[in-house]
Structures are given as structure tokens and as C-alpha cells.
């Protein structure tokens, strides 16, 4: 029987399926409209806005100090880096030089945030491909970072530790010790991650060659963070536009060229190692000094436009402030990494199976509040 007869006899029909907004693999309230032929995905259309809070509009009414705490609620897994982004924008606009101590502490906390976010991602990645135990191992290690944060900042997730001009208060006396303990602990656990998941033959089969994103497409789709770097696109803002103390440390940008799901996985694992090394370089020589520079009680940015790029755990976060010289920004735009990374989902998921879509989505590491700002 030739193929045409098969096709006429067994006509396959495409059908719609709603993945989400309540679905275990969409990590929040993302809704995907899937067009499927059997198990093969023909089209993925994200439907957003289930938790849109219009942070950008709220920012137009808030003062610059108040904006910072709203950014906690965007990408809640790298909330400290988001805070830092707004603070850096305001400080640059005011041409305020923050003390070295602040810069170093911000960098350490930023890298801890990145590790914590990647820990959670690793656990969830395992869960998405069906290995439920990884979730608990990832969370166990993340919990230690959360403890460090809680002791120093008072909160575990939405820290609001940065203020324009520095930090809200100095680090806790236990901070250095706890961080060192964590590094020692985590260095023994990361090889376990590899044993449990990275080298696992099933996991490799599930991820290798799946969801391939070429370098050209990565740039065109505005992919950033580990998603872009897995495609061989050097897009680490920490390297290209270093901020805080990141110009003083040595680290390697995790680059892979395959561009598949496995490469994105490996890039994040390598990033955890790099973040550990960054923290190690800084933790022993936090300079003494002020933790905060006094600013006016009401911060007014000069007229003009200010743009600051930082590297969150998910990729490049841009803060674009248009100021007309009053206490609130005229327009504030967050260029969130998740939003651009989500836009390429349709491009890389088509042709795969439902299981591939889930694995691919896990390595895009979407945080929905980051997309639905």
C-alpha cells in the first residue's frame, strides 16, 4: 500500500487542546492552545494575562522607592536581581556612586538568587520529565539559600532588600558564615544532580535533539539568558555590560552550541558552578564601609531616558525609564526575559510530541508573573 492510499484510508484530524491555565507543567497560570495531530504538536499559541497586574501602570503612579518592591513580584525567583535593576537605573540617572560594599553584597546576593532559582528550576525540570524526587532535592538546597536571605533581608522570596542608594540594612553577622557553609554543602550536592539526572540515559534521550533553536533564531527571537547561550549566542549581560561588582570577578560564560533542550539544561548546571565561583571570589573580601548612600526622601530623576540591563536567572531584564523630572516615572517599561523566551516556544515546539513540549518548556524556565507583568 503506498502512502497516498494510507492517507486516504486513515484520515487524521487535528484537534485543539487547552493546556492550562491549570496544568502541572505550565508552572502557574499560562494557557497554551495546542493544535495537535495525534501526539504531534502542530501549533502552540500562548494565551497570557491570567495574572497580569499592570505593574508598568502602577509604576507611573508610585515613587521610585516604591517601584522597587513591585519588581519583587515580577520574576519572583530572581526578585533581588530585579530590585537591583531598578536601583541601578535610578542610581545611574542620579549619577550616584554607591559604595563598593554595596556593590559586592549586591553581586553576592544576586548570584545566590541565581543559584536558588536554578535549584528550583532543576527540581521542576526533573518533575516535568517525570522524576519526582529531584523536586525535593532541589528544594532542599534552595531552602538553605532562602535561610540566608531570611536572616539578612527578613523575607525569603520578596526581599525588597535593595533601595536606591544601597541596601535597606547591612548584612547579618552570620551572612558570610552561612554563605560559606552553603557553598561547601552545595559543592557536594551538584555532582549528585549530575548522577541523578544529567547522566541518566532516559533523561538524555528525552532532551537531546529536542526543541532545537539555532543561533540566528535565538537572536531574532530575542532569546536571552541560558536559552540564548545554549544556542551559542553570547548574551550574558554580566559579561557584556557588567554592573555592580561583576567587572571585578572572573567567570566563564556558559556557552553551548547545540541549542537543544539538553544544552539549555547543561548551561544552567554550569551557571550554578560559575555562580558559586563568583561568590567564592567575593565572600572573603567584602569591603568595609557604608551600606547606603543617603538620597532625598523624594527621589526625582532628571528629565530624560534611562535604560539598564541586568542578567536575571532567566535572562536579560531591561528597565526603561522615561522621566519628566517628577517623583514618578513618566513611563516605565520592563523588558522581561520570560516574555521574549516564551515567544519562541511555538517555533521550537512544533513537530515534537506532548512530552517534548513539556521538556522544552521546562528548559525555557518560564515564570508566569515575569511574562504577565
Amino acid at each position, binding site marked *: 500500500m503506498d502512502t497516498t492510499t494510507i492517507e486516504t484510508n486513515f484520515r487524521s484530524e487535528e484537534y485543539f487542546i487547552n493546556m492550562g491555565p491549570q496544568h502541572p507543567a505550565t508552572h502557574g497560570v499560562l494557557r497554551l492552545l495546542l493544535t495537535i495531530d495525534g501526539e504531534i504538536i502542530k501549533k502552540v499559541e500562548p494565551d497570557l494575562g491570567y495574572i497580569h497586574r499592570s505593574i508598568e501602570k502602577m509604576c507611573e503612579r508610585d515613587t521610585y522607592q*516604591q517601584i522597587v518592591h513591585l519588581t519583587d513580584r515580577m520574576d519572583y525567583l530572581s526578585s533581588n536581581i530585579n530590585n537591583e535593576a531598578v536601583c541601578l537605573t535610578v542610581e545611574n540617572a542620579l549619577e550616584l556612586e554607591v559604595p563598593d560594599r554595596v556593590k559586592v553584597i549586591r553581586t553576592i546576593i544576586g548570584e545566590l538568587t541565581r543559584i536558588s532559582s536554578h535549584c528550583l528550576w532543576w527540581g521542576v525540570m526533573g518533575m516535568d520529565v517525570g522524576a519526582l524526587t529531584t523536586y525535593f532535592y532541589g528544594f532542599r538546597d534552595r531552602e538553605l539559600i532562602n535561610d540566608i536571605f531570611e536572616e539578612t*533581608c*527578613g523575607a525569603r522570596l*520578596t526581599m*525588597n532588600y535593595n533601595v536606591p542608594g544601597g541596601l535597606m540594612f547591612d548584612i547579618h553577622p552570620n551572612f558570610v558564615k552561612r554563605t560559606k557553609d552553603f557553598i561547601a554543602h552545595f559543592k557536594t550536592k551538584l555532582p549528585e544532580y549530575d*548522577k541523578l539526572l544529567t547522566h*541518566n*540515559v532516559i533523561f538524555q534521550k528525552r532532551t537531546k535533539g529536542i526543541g532545537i533553536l539555532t543561533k540566528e533564531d535565538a537572536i531574532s527571537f530575542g532569546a536571552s539568558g541560558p536559552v540564548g547561550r545554549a544556542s551559542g549566542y553570547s548574551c550574558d549581560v554580566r559579561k557584556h555590560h557588567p554592573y555592580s561588582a561583576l567587572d571585578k570577578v572572573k567567570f566563564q560564560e556558559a556557552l553551548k552550541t547545540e541549542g537543544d533542550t539538553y544544552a539549555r539544561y547543561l548551561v544552567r548546571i554550569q551557571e550554578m558552578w560559575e555562580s558559586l565561583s563568583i561568590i567564592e571570589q567575593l565572600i572573603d573580601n567584602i569591603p568595609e564601609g557604608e551600606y547606603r548612600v543617603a538620597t532625598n*526622601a523624594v527621589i526625582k530623576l532628571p528629565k530624560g531616558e534611562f535604560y539598564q540591563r541586568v542578567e536575571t536567572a532567566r535572562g536579560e531584564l531591561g528597565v526603561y525609564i522615561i522621566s519628566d523630572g517628577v517623583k514618578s516615572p513618566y513611563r516605565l517599561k520592563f523588558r522581561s526575559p520570560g516574555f521574549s523566551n516564551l515567544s519562541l516556544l511555538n517555533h521550537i515546539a512544533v513537530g515534537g510530541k506532548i512530552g517534548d513540549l513539556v521538556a522544552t518548556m521546562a528548559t525555557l524556565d518560564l515564570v508566569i508573573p515575569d511574562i504577565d507583568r
Partner: protein
Amino acid sequence: MSYFSDIYKGIKTLLTGMSVTGKYFLTSRKGAITQQYPDNRATLKMFDRFRGEVIMPHDEENRHRCTGCQKCEIACPNGTIEIIWDRGIDEETGKKKKKIDKFVYHLSMCTMCGLCIDVCPTDAIEWGQNFENSVYDRTALTRVLNKPGSKLMPGVED
């Protein structure tokens, strides 16, 4: 032959993975990360900077440090704090001055951003460690932080 070496390698990686979980299975009693929350209330201690709720400490003579300057009310992004004040007569100097009548705190709207405490010039409010704030009625979350009949601590305004 790569067919068989693939099988061998595959099984080996699977066994490595099983050794990791197996190790934790055997040592699980020691390393359990579960916190049996309501049972461990006696030993559960939050970190001293923990942001549970905003409180206003009073000394033993029922005095607080709030002058009613309303800086916290302005700093709050969500309208969590409402200060109801009037002008009272200062006992020592006999002058009219601002004093708080009620320091209303809507816990249900609070995002624990800490801007009010950061901005307070007299350290009148600070973070409380209590986090068990669930109630059946939302109105119970609206609190008056200054105790009835409380006064301003002398010397705070200097």
C-alpha cells in the same frame, strides 16, 4: 556492538541514579527536611529580622515612640497605614502639638516591603515575628497599633 555497549552504559547510568536515591533512602531518618509545623511551635524560632507584621512596641508605662509625622503613611505603596491624628496639648510645655489618635494598620494590604519601617525617624514601628495571621473575617486584619490610652515617650521628638 554499539548496540550492546549502549545497553550496558544505559543500565549503568540508571544504577548510578538509583544509588543516589538509595543512599538517601537509607539515611532519610537523619536528613528529613520536613518541618512538622504546628507541632514544632515550641522550638520554631524565626530569624530576628523576619518580617511577619508591623508592630508598635510600647514600654511598661504604655508609651510609644510615634510622633504622628505620617512619613510611613506616605512611604507605603499600598495605603496600608492610616494615621488618625489630632492636636493635643503637650503636658510639659503646654503648647499645642500633633499627636496620634489611632495608628491603623491594614495587614491584609501589607506587602511586607519594609519602606515604612525604613523611613520612620523615631523607630516607632518595627517588625514583629508573628506570622500566624489567618483569621475567618478580613476585618480582624485591620489593627490599631497604638494601645488605648498610650502616650508618646518623652524625649523622642528631640
